[in-house]
């Protein structure tokens, strides 16, 4: 077992949940509320120095009762050590965790992808927009288990939506404001832009 687990327990006490060793990797469950603090501590404390964020992803199990998990893969490049941190997100609560972009810039797109695919919100993320799906994508979150493999809408409906799409929708409102294309926008988009709101999904929430 990775020695960092004991150090974590000594420092954060009850915020550290169970730790297990699976296929040669150490997995530690941490408390959602204190996760940013713990991750920052792991990065900056001498002797730990997990300075490299390998990956951020999420897991949803087939068991509908089981909580979703956000997984952080940490690595110390010079100590050659790896640690996997998990945060459990119970289904009856809001799917929100704190963003680690202030600690690792590399988390920016990774968190956007988790948001895009699982609908988990990262609080404090500088630019939390959909990344692989387009901004106005309305079918939900593709990697969730309740999302059917072939998508929610029929082929005909997808084609209809694609043909009906406003070409302006291919630019974010921020981008349109650069090009002074504001005047040509549809009224509802203009209104959203005035309110400082960007690219909200019509079917989300």
């Amino acid at each position, binding site marked *: 077992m990775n020695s960092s687990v004991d150090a974590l327990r000594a420092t954060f006490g009850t915020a550290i949940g169970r730790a297990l060793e*699976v*296929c*040669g*990797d150490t*997995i530690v469950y941490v408390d959602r509320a204190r996760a940013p603090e713990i991750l920052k501590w792991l990065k900056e404390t001498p002797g730990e120095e997990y*300075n*490299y*964020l*390998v*990956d951020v*992803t999420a*897991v*949803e*199990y*087939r*068991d509908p009762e089981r909580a979703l998990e956000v*997984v952080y*893969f940490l690595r110390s*490049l010079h100590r*050659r050590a*790896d640690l*996997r941190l998990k945060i459990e997100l119970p289904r009856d609560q809001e799917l929100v965790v704190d963003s680690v972009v202030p600690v*690792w*810039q*590399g*988390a*920016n*797109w*990774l968190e956007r*992808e988790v948001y895009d*695919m699982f609908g988990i919100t990262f609080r404090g993320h500088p630019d939390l927009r959909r*990344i*692989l*799906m*387009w901004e106005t994508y309305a079918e939900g979150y*593709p*990697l969730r288990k309740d*999302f059917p*493999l072939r998508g929610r809408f029929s082929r005909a409906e997808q084609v209809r939506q694609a043909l009906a799409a406003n070409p302006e929708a291919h*630019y*974010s409102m*921020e*981008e349109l404001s*650069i*090009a002074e294309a504001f005047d040509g926008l549809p009224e509802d988009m203009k209104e959203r832009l005035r309110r400082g709101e960007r690219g909200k999904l019509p079917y989300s929430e």
Partner: protein
Amino acid sequence: MSKRTVEFEVATPGLGAQGQPQRVPLGVAGDPAVTDAPDAAGEHMLINLGPQHPATHGVLRLVVELDGETVIRVIPHIGYLHSGFEKLGEYRHYNQIIPLTDRTDYLSPMANNVGFALAAEQLMGIEITPRCTVLRVIACEMSRIISHMVWLGTTSIDLGAFTPFLWAFQERERIYNLQEMWTGARLTTSVTRVGGMMADVPDEFVDGLRHFTDTFPKTLYEIDRVLTKNAVWVGRTQGVGVMTAEEAVNYSFSGPMLRASGVPYDVRKDRPYLGYETYDFDVVVGEHGDVYDRYLVRLEECHQSNRILRQALDRLPAGPVNVDDPRVILPPKSRAMSDMEAMIYHFKQVMEGVKAPVGEAYAGIENPKGELGNYLVSDGTAKPVRWRIRPPSFINLAALSKMAEGRLLSDLIAINASVDIVMGEVDR
């Protein structure tokens, strides 16, 4: 006839300390036509680069905010090639996922096959045979060479050098011929299986690859000769897109991008898999973290891959390629047709798939683009609950705007090329 000396007035108004003519910004010379023009400062232009553009290396779309020719901001739009591989993987048996891995980073399909197979084997606790290990090393290093050759070729075209493209693609064809010899496919190889390989190499493969390793360095030296000291190449790449070591680590760079910034991290050395620790090769590390160093790192990595290939060919042991476990490896067709027990195993594997124990596994391998991670979570069934690809070029691309901001638009092309993206993997 006497010689005459004619003194020309220098066209530019001054010379620098080295005697080089200094550039003067337009409009400063006091030309009334220029000075009276409305002040364009602060007026930014939005241009849309891609998704169909030869210099974006696939269906990448960049919305670029420009002040004159200076890049203020780059907003990448990706997802045009999103195929939902990770979702598809949740509905397939482990061996059925392998064809999907070909199609992620389609410039190094064999290495992706190996990466996935390693993760699945780690999850199931399978130990592969010595011959299979060496064959997989050969597969990975062949992939590294073709991927770097594509990178070299396309990047040199982006920056105005056409000839290296032809040389590089010629070498790539030779590896493709070897891949075809081995797997029957040039691009979508699907060469691995959980617990072994789709097939052993044919007899003439070893000689063919040895001939390749003997003749390939000549092309590398030729490319080196036309590019490394070429004034245009150096001018377009040195000091462009610089990432310091600290920034590279903070942005989770991996592979040649990380090493060009001076961080000596190579998964093959530092988290060894497939017995890479027993091969003699050097980790290539750059110094400045610019496009030029990334080029040098990749060029030298081809030499190192060639070294590994030679060693692998020398040590290629005899013996079976597949593990001797009827639960994971299909019996030979002849036995499945004649032996009852073999037929049952065959039936169970095809119909039910190979069941993995409850748990999860992460296998990171050093792909040509960076660290390719395959993360598998299993709930004890024959299909993974979650298959996550850690896509190296997706993560490297995320720093594009950081590298390009404040540079010229033409530098953006060089920087984007230097990331070595492949959209199949970025979008998955």
